[in-house]
């Protein structure tokens, strides 16, 4: 974590050059060993997408299997002019955007909480990350039944305690339900990245600030937040990419009703309920394009880190 802000020293550069020369000698033998794995990785991760692009250019509905033919960009025309696309894009933006912002804020709150020393901090941190690692399908069920159900849900029980009537979250407020669930799930991820950022902050600088009379809030605002900037960026970008793909909670809790039909759920519906392979594939390509739009910015940041091994 600390290496992220280091500049490569002269010795490191020298060593890298030396290593480069040494590599060339036995490079062929090692390539023969290692490249098949790389090729396999690339094929397995890239080919399905190429096939999707090909399918998106076909006129192919499974209800009419005899009419498969090449249709150029007809499916895209249907996607962009159809009545489903804009509402779905809107739903995607609302759900992804709110979940990212909320989980980032909560993540920051928990990261600050866990950055302090207290008894059982390790245990608390572990418990904090469980929502991110627990099976999303099971998490969706916990939320659907255990927390939000009208009759037996904990949230409605708590509402009842303070004298409010139960809310049928799942059917009355489906968008809120999905956002709550996704926020719960992704807060730990945001927290981990931000906590790494907090812990890489120099203690001396913070102490110096407090000696100079800066209060905790001013220190946080002027020292900690600027320091966290790059971590917040990375957390936001990775979080957006993962949340754009969120599918399990929507499939299990709302089935795309009430404004929760995001691009990924719409695509699923086209493929498996509409049985239109060509259109579904076109939606897939559009979804990927949206994700890539977000990811390009992420890639630019991450790429440097990935290639240079944490030195930039």
């Amino acid at each position: 974590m600390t290496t992220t802000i280091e500049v490569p020293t002269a010795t490191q550069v020298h060593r890298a050059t030396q290593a480069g020369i040494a590599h060339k000698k036995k490079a062929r033998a090692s390539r023969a060993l290692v490249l098949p794995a790389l090729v396999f990785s690339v094929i397995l991760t890239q080919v399905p997408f190429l096939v999707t692009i090909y399918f998106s250019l076909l006129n192919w509905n499974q209800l009419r299997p005899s009419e498969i033919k090449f249709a150029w960009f007809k499916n895209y025309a249907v996607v962009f002019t159809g009545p489903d696309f804009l509402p779905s894009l809107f739903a995607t933006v609302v759900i992804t955007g709110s979940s990212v912002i909320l989980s980032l804020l909560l993540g920051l709150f928990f990261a600050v909480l866990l950055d302090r020393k207290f008894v059982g901090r390790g245990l608390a941190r572990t418990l904090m990350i469980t929502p991110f690692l627990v099976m999303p399908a099971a998490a969706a069920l916990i939320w659907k039944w255990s927390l939000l159900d009208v009759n037996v849900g904990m949230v409605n029980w708590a509402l009842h305690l303070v004298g409010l009537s139960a809310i049928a979250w799942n059917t009355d407020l489906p968008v809120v339900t999905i956002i709550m669930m996704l926020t719960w799930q992704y807060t730990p991820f945001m927290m981990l990245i931000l906590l790494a950022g907090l812990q890489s902050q120099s203690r001396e600088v913070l102490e110096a600030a407090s000696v100079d009379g800066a209060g905790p809030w001013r220190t946080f605002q002027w020292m900690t937040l600027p320091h966290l900037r790059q971590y917040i960026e990375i957390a936001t970008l990775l979080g957006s990419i993962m949340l754009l793909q969120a599918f399990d909670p929507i499939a299990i809790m709302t089935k795309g009703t009430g404004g929760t039909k995001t691009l990924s759920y719409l695509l699923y519906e086209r493929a498996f309920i509409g049985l239109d392979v060509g259109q579904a594939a076109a939606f897939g390509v559009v979804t990927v394009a949206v994700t890539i739009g977000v990811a390009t910015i992420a890639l630019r940041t991450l790429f440097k880190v990935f290639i240079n091994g944490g030195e930039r």
Partner: protein
Amino acid sequence: MVRTVISALVIVLWCIAPFYWMIVTAFRDVGFTYDTTPWPTHVTLANFETAFSTALGNHLGQAMLNSLFIGATVTVVALLFGISAAYALARLEFKGKGIISGAILAASMFPGVALITPLFQLFTNIGWMGTYQALIIPSISFALPLTVYTLTSFLREMPWDLEEAARIDGCTRVQAFRRVIMPLAAPAVFTTAILAFISSWNEYLISSQLSSDATQPVTVAIAGFAGSQPHVEPYTAIMAAGTIVTVPLVILVLIFQRRIVAGLTAGGVKG
């Protein structure tokens, strides 16, 4: 002190309460489904029997074995290819390294939902629908980018001088890697294995379309759960099934927390 109490309270409410409520419901008699007493009442194990009852159409036991089998295979294959690929990316110089790293990194951001159409067609054509390999191969392609980039960032920090030294002493590159680097890299490999396993264990989307009753993993099994009485929503049995699949994972996380945190931040912060 006050700080400790407040922190503890917030964290308990945030992460423990949902699980606690699930466990309490899981042990409650089905006749008292609508009882919302916040502590265990009418304790029974019957819900767990319902959850495992094949007579009611719940294949939880089989599904857990399927998930274990799929997860183990995916982890082993992804690690075999992941270690070699990560070694190449962290240690060798070759043309197109940047493009390959980029392609693998991009694949980890790829929405899985875009793949189900071609996969469905492909597996129908070659008669693989509902087979284990139809679930394992896509899962590998999801686990592989994660494996490669987590391992690459770990391997980059290995003391490669030692490997050079071993080679000067007469080891081949493979020997040097196996005898010097592998033992040092073992914790990183183990961390990656846990993450790869969790990613496969949690996979729902692809499996929900490509599995059959016999091969369905536990994610699919609990999503389509049936209860002992046809007209009552099987809350208690669902919660029992939920308890069975989440509690082991929570324990796993507690045991390996340090490694998991290291792995998640290596993949996240360092890309």
